[in-house]
């Protein structure tokens, strides 16, 4: 038997200037919980796919991270979610893009991989597939957090002031 391992990330672009002790403690707790949930699957003899799915569900459910609940807003004030998953031995893969009602997009990506002949489903069609597969759907308001909403308002004000258009794409925060 091989020793199981799990590695996770919760996003790059973390800046000390925007960090508070409370936020850092929350992040560390959430990451530790994701690691424990995923590793428990590995210790139970489940697959690497099960482990990465379990870990990501924890992070999607935590509003601190830009995925699932707590996702950033688009220009139009919507939360638009993407996810993907891949199995190393078989090269099987599944992905979804631009979904708005799927509570845990990683679970839908896995359903695409395991229960469809396709790799990437998009938008309304992806959500129709989710409904057919019994994947949990939620009202889009589930994903909203005030912090993310204020980030969008700040960006829109900068748009209106011409700051972002004038300086071009290079100054934008493009972590995704």
């Amino acid at each position, binding site marked *: 038997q091989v020793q199981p391992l*799990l590695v996770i*990330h919760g996003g*790059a*672009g973390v800046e000390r200037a925007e960090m508070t002790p409370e936020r850092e403690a929350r992040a560390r707790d959430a990451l530790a919980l994701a690691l424990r949930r995923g590793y428990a699957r590995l210790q139970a003899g489940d697959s690497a796919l099960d482990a990465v799915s379990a870990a*990501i569900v924890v*992070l999607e459910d935590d509003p601190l991270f830009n995925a699932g609940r707590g996702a*950033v807003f688009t*220009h139009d004030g919507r939360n638009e979610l*993407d996810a993907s998953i891949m199995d190393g031995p078989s090269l099987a893969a599944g992905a979804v893009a631009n979904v708005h009602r799927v509570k845990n997009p990683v679970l839908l990506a896995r359903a695409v991989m395991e229960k469809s002949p396709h790799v990437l489903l998009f938008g309304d069609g992806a959500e129709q597939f989710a409904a057919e597969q019994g994947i949990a759907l939620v009202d889009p308001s589930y994903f909203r957090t005030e912090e993310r909403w204020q980030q969008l308002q700040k960006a829109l004000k900068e748009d209106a002031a011409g700051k972002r258009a004038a300086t071009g794409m290079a100054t934008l925060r493009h972590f*995704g």
Partner: protein
Amino acid sequence: TVGAVARDSQGRLAAATSTGGMTDKRWGRVGDSPIIGAGTYANADCAVSGTGWGEYYLRVAAARDICLRMSLLGESAAIAGQAVIEDEIPSLGGDGGAIVLGADGEVAMPFNTEGMYRGWIGSDGVPHVAIYAQD
């Protein structure tokens, strides 16, 4: 963006990534996270999940590039991750990070920003969490 890579007790690797994209995005923009080979990739030798400026991860097919370096060139996770995340992407103007897991259990977590939320757990069963480069 969040991501995970794992190796199970049978030595099988997997990778996954999930994201809300970028604030104020327009026109149905899609980044690297749902694109197999850009933000996510796994084969028998390697598993990768990326987080960063998606357009650059797409242009260099970042996740598959890291895995091909490991599979075909025999590079370590650290060397392959550094070549793509710390050298190639910044040379084009992009930034971000990734987590890389090799079939041999080697872990790399390269990033070129001030911090990246990240963590790992293995034989000791204890979650290890880090944020900044010096953590």
